[in-house]
């Protein structure tokens, strides 16, 4: 893996270069921000480490520049600036992690491993291929219980292939990924490293070649052997790490499990279809494929294209579709078309080696969809009553008993990019008692820690009495709901679910506006809220896009060529389904006549341009919540 280190502290640079090289990373060093930009935008890096204070362009500006230019490479900010505000500034600039100097080098390398794992959706710390295990923490490789000794370059090669199971790497790609920009290895050198790695694996007892040559393209990892029952039982999701009580399967988990079963059930059929295609191509090259076999091959390719697309394997689906079309159009002996058919089939087979990734993807989806409730309470009985009720509804819980621990946990989750809670339950005692007072203040101070986040996390207070002044106090701190005991666990969990649904995350918003500049800007401006945005600049495509997107809310401009927003809104309101869709208008017009016309067409809200992202996001959220 290749890392760019941008820091002007030469002593630190030397220490880190040495330490990271010992851990088998290839390092490039830049000593000012502009140089960092040139390196980062010229070469491919798996991770970038930035110092905050840099000559020419500081770390924050450099980080923002990478993100503005759509570089998704994980970035760690390394700085002597501590404190929450600085951390927030660094993370909001686009950094994925933030480490304060002085730091423990081992902690830095552990955080690098975490970010690299997340980058490739490898949730387990150890990379596996059948009985082969590569442990990035100890740089150790074990095959069937025996340690395997590799040189640094061989280790990096193996790690590269294990981390990118579906990718084909040319020699140039490998040089770009594994050698620093100051080294210029010859192609023959890389091939020689590859050959030695293959030989060592073979000598260790590997049944066949782990790294496959893809003719004309490069090298890739062979499809992994079947997953054993033991491996299947490993939960690839880190979600349980924050949950004291893993939930029973909810509807979505059940759905995803069922899809995984279907994928596995039809694996022999897919293999048969691939074998049929291979045979058909062989017969075709011998000019010996009869009409009936050709038809069977076309049907097999058609079926594969449809089924693979259904499981989200878009590239594999496209390859199968191309094979189908090539077989349909093949008229007489044509070496060029034969080669294309054969290459497409090989590429398709390699793509299908991602079977395990499919399961991981499906499981990831499952984790993404399940709710997590944080229970902040020092009352053990309260938490113990709630956990079984939450679990029975597919909700995970995390219980923390002191306000200080809640703050630390939240900070840790944010820094590590881990799942944040969907709702927070806070048990408060308002009874007149001096000893309660301090603790109450501490718990109340927790509320804005969650509600001021973007997107905000709702806090539900469970109080021991119902008085207006207590409600006012909670509301002033930003509490979303105030429930009074006695209240049963089921009611509390229902309110949590309701509160969590208020979140903006994943809400589909469609924006129709002919102002292309605004459409380009809005996704970036509204990104922190986690809306799924669809933008459209041509109102003539409105109906088709609407049906395809099925948004939760629609934002319309008033004046557009061909069709006005008011006309679109009127059309929308004639349909029984879209009758209730929240519609928010954007316009530079502020006169009463236009606003009357807008509301008469069926609009729910009206926002004046220029657009202020925070205001627009809150108006969108407000409308979405009113709909519920």
């Amino acid at each position, binding site marked *: 893996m290749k890392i760019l280190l941008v820091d002007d502290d030469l002593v630190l640079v030397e220490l880190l270069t040495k330490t990271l090289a010992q851990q088998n990373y290839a390092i490039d060093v830049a000593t000012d921000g502009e140089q960092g930009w040139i390196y980062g935008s010229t070469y491919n890096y798996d991770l970038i480490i930035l110092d905050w204070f840099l000559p020419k362009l500081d770390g924050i500006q450099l980080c923002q520049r990478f993100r503005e230019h759509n570089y998704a490479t994980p970035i760690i900010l390394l700085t002597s600036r501590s404190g929450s505000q600085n951390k927030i500034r660094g993370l909001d600039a686009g950094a994925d992690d933030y480490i304060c100097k002085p730091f423990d080098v081992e902690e830095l390398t552990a955080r690098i491993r975490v970010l690299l794992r997340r980058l490739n959706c490898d949730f387990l710390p150890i990379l596996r291929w059948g009985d082969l295990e590569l442990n990035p923490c100890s740089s150790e490789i074990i095959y069937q219980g025996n340690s395997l000794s590799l040189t640094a370059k061989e280790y990096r090669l193996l790690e590269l292939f294990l981390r990118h199971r579906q990718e084909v790497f040319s020699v140039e790609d490998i040089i770009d990924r594994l050698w620093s920009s100051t080294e210029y290895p010859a192609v023959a050198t890389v091939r020689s490293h590859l050959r030695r790695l293959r030989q060592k694996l073979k000598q260790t007892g590997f049944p066949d070649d782990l790294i496959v040559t893809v003719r004309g393209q490069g090298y890739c990892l062979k499809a992994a052997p079947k997953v054993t029952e033991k491996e299947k039982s490993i939960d690839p999701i880190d979600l349980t790490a924050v949950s004291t009580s893993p939930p029973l399967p909810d509807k979505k988990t059940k759905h995803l499990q069922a899809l995984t079963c279907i994928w596995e059930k039809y694996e022999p059929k897919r293999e048969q279809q691939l074998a049929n295609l291979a045979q058909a191509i062989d017969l075709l090259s011998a000019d010996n494929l009869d009409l009936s076999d050709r038809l069977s091959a076309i049907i097999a390719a058609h079926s594969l294209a449809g089924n693979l*697309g259904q499981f989200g394997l878009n590239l594999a689906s496209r390859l199968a579709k191309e094979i189908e079309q090539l077989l349909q159009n093949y008229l007489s002996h044509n070496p060029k078309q034969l080669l294309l058919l054969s290459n497409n089939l090989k590429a398709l087979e390699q793509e299908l080696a991602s079977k395990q990734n499919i399961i991981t993807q499906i499981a990831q989806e499952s984790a993404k969809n399940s709710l997590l409730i944080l229970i902040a309470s020092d009352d053990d009985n309260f938490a113990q009553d709630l956990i079984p009720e939450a679990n029975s509804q597919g909700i995970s819980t995390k219980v923390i008993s002191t306000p200080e621990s809640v703050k630390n946990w939240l900070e840790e989750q944010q820094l590590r990019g881990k799942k944040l809670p969907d709702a927070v339950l806070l048990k408060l005692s308002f009874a007149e008692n001096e000893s309660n007072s301090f603790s109450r203040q501490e718990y109340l101070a927790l509320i804005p820690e969650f509600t001021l986040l973007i997107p905000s996390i709702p806090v539900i207070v469970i109080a021991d009495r119902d008085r207006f002044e207590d409600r006012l106090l909670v509301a002033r701190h930003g509490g979303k709901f105030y429930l009074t005991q006695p209240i049963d666990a089921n009611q509390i969990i229902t309110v949590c679910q309701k509160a969590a649904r208020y979140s903006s995350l994943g809400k589909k918003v469609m924006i129709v506006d002919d102002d292309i500049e605004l459409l380009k800007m809005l996704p970036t401006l509204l990104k922190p809220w986690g809306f799924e945005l669809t933008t459209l600049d041509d109102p003539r495509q409105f109906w*088709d896009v609407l049906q395809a997107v099925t948004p939760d809310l629609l934002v319309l401009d008033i004046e557009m060529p061909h069709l006005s927003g008011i006309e679109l809104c009127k059309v929308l309101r004639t349909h029984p389904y879209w009758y209730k869709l929240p519609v928010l208008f954007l316009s530079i017009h502020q006169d009463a006549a236009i606003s009357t016309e807008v509301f008469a067409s069926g609009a729910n809200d009206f926002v004046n341009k220029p657009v202020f992202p925070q205001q627009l996001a809150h108006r969108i959220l407000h409308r979405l919540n009113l709909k519920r």
Partner: protein
Amino acid sequence: MTHKNILLIDDEETIQEVVQVGIEIEAGWQVAIASSGFKGIDLAQQQQPDVILLDVMMPGMDGIETLSQLKNNDQTSSIPVIFLTAKAQADEKTQFQSLGVVDVITKPFNSMTLASQIAKILGWEI
């Protein structure tokens, strides 16, 4: 959601199971399956489903022919039909609607949202 009976006519086993799982888990509706146009027409007559999901490209009797027979049969003509197809260019969609289908759902579809997509098309409460 209120209970509904769905009939899926599709020759592809994987799609049959994905649709069944998606609709039954997400909406609790019952899904009957026919793997050909002939069997589909037969089941539609017997079960009178609330909607028929019909694949367009099927061997033997294709979706267009199956639709035509369903619409010419007094027992099945009023059952709404939604096409499930990988082909859904705008012009084809209009052409399909002129044949009597209420809408077209494009493959690949999202099995998580398939039930709500059907509900939206038919104005069912979700």
